[in-house]
């Protein structure tokens, strides 16, 4: 399936958000996530299934004012 991760289209067979993060090397990283503009807490990543066209955002701590 084709999904959008941080604005870029990628092909992925990851069955869940947790699996996708593992595939991207972000399984243990300090990140937060949303799917289709809705926040997905860490505790729900394993049960958050993904489907074609889903928009995933992965964010990390960054400089801010």
């Amino acid at each position, binding site marked *: 399936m084709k999904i959008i*991760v*941080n*604005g*870029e289209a990628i092909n992925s067979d990851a069955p869940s958000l947790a699996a996708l993060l593992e595939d*991207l*090397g*972000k399984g243990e*990283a*300090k*990140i*937060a*996530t*949303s799917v289709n*503009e*809705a*926040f997905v*807490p*860490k505790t729900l990543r394993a049960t958050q299934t993904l489907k074609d066209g889903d928009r995933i*955002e*992965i*964010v*990390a*701590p*960054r*400089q*801010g*004012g």
Partner: protein
Amino acid sequence: MPVFYGTEIASRLMLGTAQYPSPAILAEAFRESAAGIATVSVRREAGGEQAGQDFWALIQDLGVAVLPNTAGCHSVREAVTTAQMARELFDTNWIKLEIIGHADTLQPDPFGLVEAAAQLSEDGFNVFPYCTEDLVLCERLVEVGCKVLMPWGAPIGTGLGLNNIYGLRSLRAHFADIPLVVDAGLGLPSQAAHAIELGYDAVLLNTAVAKAGDPVAMAKGFARAVEAGALAAQADPMDPRDMAAPSTPVLGKAFL
């Protein structure tokens, strides 16, 4: 010293973490500023990037409270989702709520701000709203649960200082029991001192320090300015007057 949502902070200076020439200068500027709170953001990180992880390690070493922001958000939904992600990421209920309503001035959207502040307060957040000095807006923000108000001094990144001193003074008089922070627009330590002299509890700035030719020296300058402002505010300043009044006694002057 200011108390935000039950937490006393040992400094009247809150400092942003963006735009410094290097991480080392950021860290040194923080040390010299004695700031008690660092503002941070959440931004995309995918693939092999490690910038966020490295930045987080740097912030933890500063030993200050962390205030995540919703910078760059233009809608309630964006801001609320960003706040939720920030809460998990930084493990804090504190959120500096920014909803931009105007592209050129980066003026806060007052309508979205009240709506988002209500939702977030309901959801257990401690909201620090980046707002204007509008009394009615600030009343609404307090009504929906904000226990801190952060009016702008001037538009973000301008360094213009306190654009509406009357408005800021009115706000201070009207909200005697709410911690007030001048957030954004400060360019010089004297402007920060002025805000504290007006009775503001703290100032929040970033560009003034980060984009100074010598950020570390400027950080030190702001640290001293907020201390000077606080001493002045506590010292019951004299009332200004239009007519001159000699300070040297007239009595006893030699008759020449």
